[in-house]
Structure formats: C-alpha cells, structure tokens
C-alpha cells in the first residue's frame, strides 16, 4: 500500500522494466557517457526510508538509532516559516570527514526529506529548500567517522505546504 502512494502500477512496471531489460541499455549508455562509473556503487534510492510516515520508521529503514544532540552541527533554519512550501535549510558540520547528511521533518507526511552521501574532499555543508506541512521539528543527522550526530530545531509554520 505504501508503494502505491508513490507510484501507480504503471510506474512500478515501468521501473521494473527499466531495472531489467531497458535498464541495461540505459545503464550502458550512462556508463559510456561517463555518468555512471562501473565499480562505484551508486547510492540506491531507499524506498522504505522515504515512504516512512514518521521519524522512527524512517530511522529504522536507514538503520540509525536517534543520536544525541551535538554542538558540532550548525542547523540554520528560520524560527518562523511563512510559506511551508519553501523553507530554507542549511546544515553545516564543523567536524572533518563528514560522510552523510540527512534532513528530516518529524510531522511531515513522509519524515525523511533528503539524504546526502558526502565523498572525501567534499565539505560537510548542504544548503537546500524543503517543504513543511505544519509546525514541526527539523532534524539534521550527520555521520562522521561512522557515528551519527544530531541537531534539531522547531520551526513554526504559518501556511503549510506539502
């Protein structure tokens, strides 16, 4: 049922087709054009995590237990968001070798907003814009040297946009 909310049957079939027959050709094409490099595993879209309706489910799907609040992470977000459809968020980790940054909103219909894999050489800094359905807590999870850290802030939403 959860899948249905994301993809109609046609879409699922299309995806399946892409993954099997058509997908091979597409992948070859992408590999040839240098977009996908063989040998480098691409981070697969984690359906269960992105379909999760609440924080716990999303964290379970990602295999993370909620970490302690940390001062290493700077989460910049307005206290009051007038337009929930566009809420600017910046996550900055002052620790070197940040491996992953995930952004979650606890009261959104789907809690996990985005998950970034940060390769070596890329700074622990992400700035983006997210949707918020209602007043909620925005959580940034940052993975450094295999360990997760958290920063969270409550944001009041005047007009929800989800």
């Amino acid at each position, binding site marked *: 049922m959860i899948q249905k*909310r*994301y*993809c*109609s049957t046609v*879409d699922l079939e*299309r*995806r399946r087709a*892409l993954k099997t027959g058509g997908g091979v050709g597409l992948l070859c094409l992408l590999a040839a*054009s*240098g*977009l996908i*490099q063989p040998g*480098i595993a*691409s*981070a697969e*879209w*984690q359906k269960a995590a*992105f379909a999760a309706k609440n924080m716990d489910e999303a964290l379970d799907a990602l295999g993370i237990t909620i970490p302690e609040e940390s001062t290493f992470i700077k989460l910049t977000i307005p206290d009051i968001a007038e337009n929930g*459809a*566009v*809420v600017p968020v*910046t996550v900055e980790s002052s620790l070197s070798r940040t491996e992953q940054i995930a952004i979650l*909103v606890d009261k*959104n*219909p*789907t809690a*996990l*907003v*985005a*998950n*970034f*894999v*940060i*390769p070596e*050489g*890329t*700074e622990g*800094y*992400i*700035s*983006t*814009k*997210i*949707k*918020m359905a209602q007043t909620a807590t925005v959580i940034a999870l940052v993975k450094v040297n295999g360990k997760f850290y958290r920063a969270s802030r409550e944001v009041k939403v005047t007009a929800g946009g*989800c």
Partner: protein
Amino acid sequence: MANPTRIRASVKDGVTEVRALMQHDMENGRRKDEAGALIPAWFITEMKVQCNGKIVLEGQFGTSVSRNPYLVFRFKGGKPKEKVTLFWLDNLGDTRSDEVEISG
C-alpha cells in the same frame, strides 16, 4: 524532456562552491487538481554531481524537497574551466544531466 538544471560553480582558495537549481515539479502525490483528481507523485529521487569524473556529491530526495530543488555545497579541488556535471533521476524514470564550467 525536463528543463535544464541551472548550475553555477566557482572556485575560491581551492574550494569549489556549486549552486544548482533543478527544474522539477516535485509533486508529492497528495495534491489535487482543479477537478479534484489526485495529481500523481512525480519527484526527483536521486541526484549526483561529478567533477572530472569524480563524484563530489550524491543525494536521494523524498517528496518533501521543495519544487525546483535548490542546492548549495562545496568541495575541495576543482579548477577554472573544469566541468561540473549534475545528473538526476525521477520516480518515473526521467533523467537529466547538465554541466557547467567552473569559473575562477
């Protein structure tokens, strides 16, 4: 075919800052059109940024990323005239790849 991603990349003191604006509706599948029919979910699920063939950022999106996803990040290295490529894939299998030269 989706509209091109607007990308700007500039290097300063050995750190390249990338600013990108992907053109995508990011429909969450819960909105209704004027006739009251549900608009199907349509959103970017995966994106990847490369510089000189090296992956500098990989991301996975859910439906709560705003319409026309905006992204800023920084990576070490990158020289003027080198190319930064942003690729995305949406839940319907549509893809888009755009590149820009790093400005110094």
